[in-house]
């Protein structure tokens, strides 16, 4: 018993130090542009852009391999920010922006399968086997990963309602001309 625990600990230590050394020698200089681009992305690592996560998406953007319109959850605001940073022009009317959305569970048809919990990058869904699940509004980033895995279509994306606290004055109409 002691032996096996000890050997596991020793293994952990040895592998850990190998990783530590490797990270020091093999580290890549972080690209400052890439870091700035990363800060503009939503950070939910949902993979809808076709990359593993926002970090890889930012790297591709920095190299000019990906269009600034790559991130669906980011919406128009992200496209604008990215375009301004990279100095590219985009036709914003082509960007579909459904506005900020978050997932919502229709309680009557949730079967409590727990599949959505596994895919949610931010642990925004609570629930247990055979119990009705629910989305914590504040933690949901609107990545919509959970929608595809739900077997009963109990999960759907809903626009975040505008509240008094979030409403802002529009730009004056006379600013258009």
């Amino acid at each position, binding site marked *: *018993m002691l*032996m*096996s*625990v000890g050997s*596991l600990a020793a293994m952990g230590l040895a592998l850990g130090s190998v990783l530590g050394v490797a990270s020091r020698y093999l580290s890549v200089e972080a690209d400052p542009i890439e870091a700035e681009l990363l*800060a503009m*992305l*939503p*950070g*939910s*690592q949902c993979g809808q852009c076709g990359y593993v996560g926002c970090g890889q998406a930012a790297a591709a953007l920095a190299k000019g391999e990906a269009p600034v319109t790559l991130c669906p959850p980011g919406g128009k*605001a992200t496209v604008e920010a990215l375009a301004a940073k990279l100095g590219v022009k985009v036709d914003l009317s082509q960007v579909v922006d459904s506005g900020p959305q978050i997932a919502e569970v229709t309680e009557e048809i949730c079967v409590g399968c727990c599949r959505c919990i596994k895919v*949610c*990058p*931010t*642990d*925004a869904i609570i629930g247990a086997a055979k119990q009705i699940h629910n989305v914590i509004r*504040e*933690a949901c*980033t609107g990545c919509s990963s959970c929608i595809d895995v739900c077997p009963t279509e109990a999960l759907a994306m809903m626009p975040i309602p*505008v*509240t*008094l606290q*979030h*409403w*802002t*004055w*529009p*730009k*004056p109409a*006379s*600013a258009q001309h």
Partner: protein
Amino acid sequence: MGFLDRFLKTPNWGVHPEDHKRPAADVPLRLFPSPERIFMPLHQHVGGAARPIVMVGQKVLKGQLIAQAQGNISAPIHASVSGTISAVGEVTAPHPSGLPFKAITIDSDGENRWIDSEPLADPFSAAPEEITKRTAAAGVVGLGGATFPAAPKFALGKRLKVTTLIVNGGECEPYLSSDDRIMRDYPEMVIDGARLVMHAIGATQALVGIENNKPEAIAAMRQAAAAFPEIKICPLPALYPMGSDRQLIKVLTGIEVPSDARAAETGVLVHNVSTCAAVHKAIRLGQPLVERIITINGGAIAAPGNLYAPLGTMISDLFAFVGLKEAPSRLILGGPMMGTPLLHDRIPIVKGASGILAFNAAEAFVPEAGPCIRCGNCTKACPMGLLPLEMAARIRVGDLEGAEKFELQDCISCGCCAYVCPSHIPLVQYFSHAKGELTAAERSKLRTEATKRLVEAKTARIEREEREKLEAAARRKAERDAAKAAAAKAATPVAEQTQGASA
């Protein structure tokens, strides 16, 4: 008037809009008869919304607590009529968006029965904290329009050892006269309230600033304050925005409040005259804030003037009482310079509602905006010393950061710049738009950071669970191995013994 006084009292900012206060201000105060139904919003103040503590069907008395304060900065809400709670639902908010917010509906029984009150017998020998506590419990908030809860402000003033209380009777917004009316009709209440506030914060003097276009109010207040040398009535030149805290402090004391500091840090605290009267009622009569004086004015009103009305009364009920000459072309809560445009009149009045304006077509007319001719009028008028034209030019092309470099955050949205602009550029809307967008950007930045933390937490959790699974598996294996070994051991001695026995 000495040279210094002149220098202090003739500021080089501001505008002189036509004040339109009379004849409405001279009409005697009218008591609005109790409405059939009132809608009491839960969020009538800066800070957290109140939490309802009543149920549908419950009977309540006037002044009864129906929603509790929630959080450090908040205020409780009390019933403004006696009757039955008929709903806890939503009503259109007095807000330019026309969005709804939560409100408690009370069907009045028409009797206006007050709940038993417990006035404080001798407030000046009570501890200052007692005044603050009772003011908080009565739901008193700044009635000048800012609606910041009064009690936390008292506590702040006490902590920072404020010496001077400034009582704001400026009421510089055109058309409004509710503060004028309270000073004319109830000057003793205002003065007594001011003395109670002084006691609560430990101030040694009070300066009451009143614009000189209200001579009746000045006379009434002078008479009421005659017995109290620590309270000085100070007539001020009528200049917009004299009623703004920073401008009033500067004119009365010469103190310039730095843009990143609170007024209390410079030793002064400002409270509005109506707020002082509300403190008087809370302490001397034990009555919570459930009614207020409200000015109903504008070209579309048949009989403009001031009404004493319960909070939560629908604006349409008030209009029915004063009569409409024509359908209003524009509705405003508050004054024309800084007030809130309203989309319709099915909106209840709230604690901060100093007036409702119903403009006719001529008053509501807004000329079309032209291009900026760089005349510099806006810069001369701005009481905060900003460059409105530069800020607006940047916001127009979406350069919000550029506007921030011109101190956009110092703008108090007073509207002086837009008022004097010969090209009628809606400058204030530019600034409100930009401030809103900047706040939203700040919020989404915080959100992104929170998302990153959540993602990291989830990754850490998955890793920990994997590790724990591995460890548990290893432990089970080790236990199995140990058990096997033990079994083997147990078996061997038996074999030896048998061997021994046979030998």
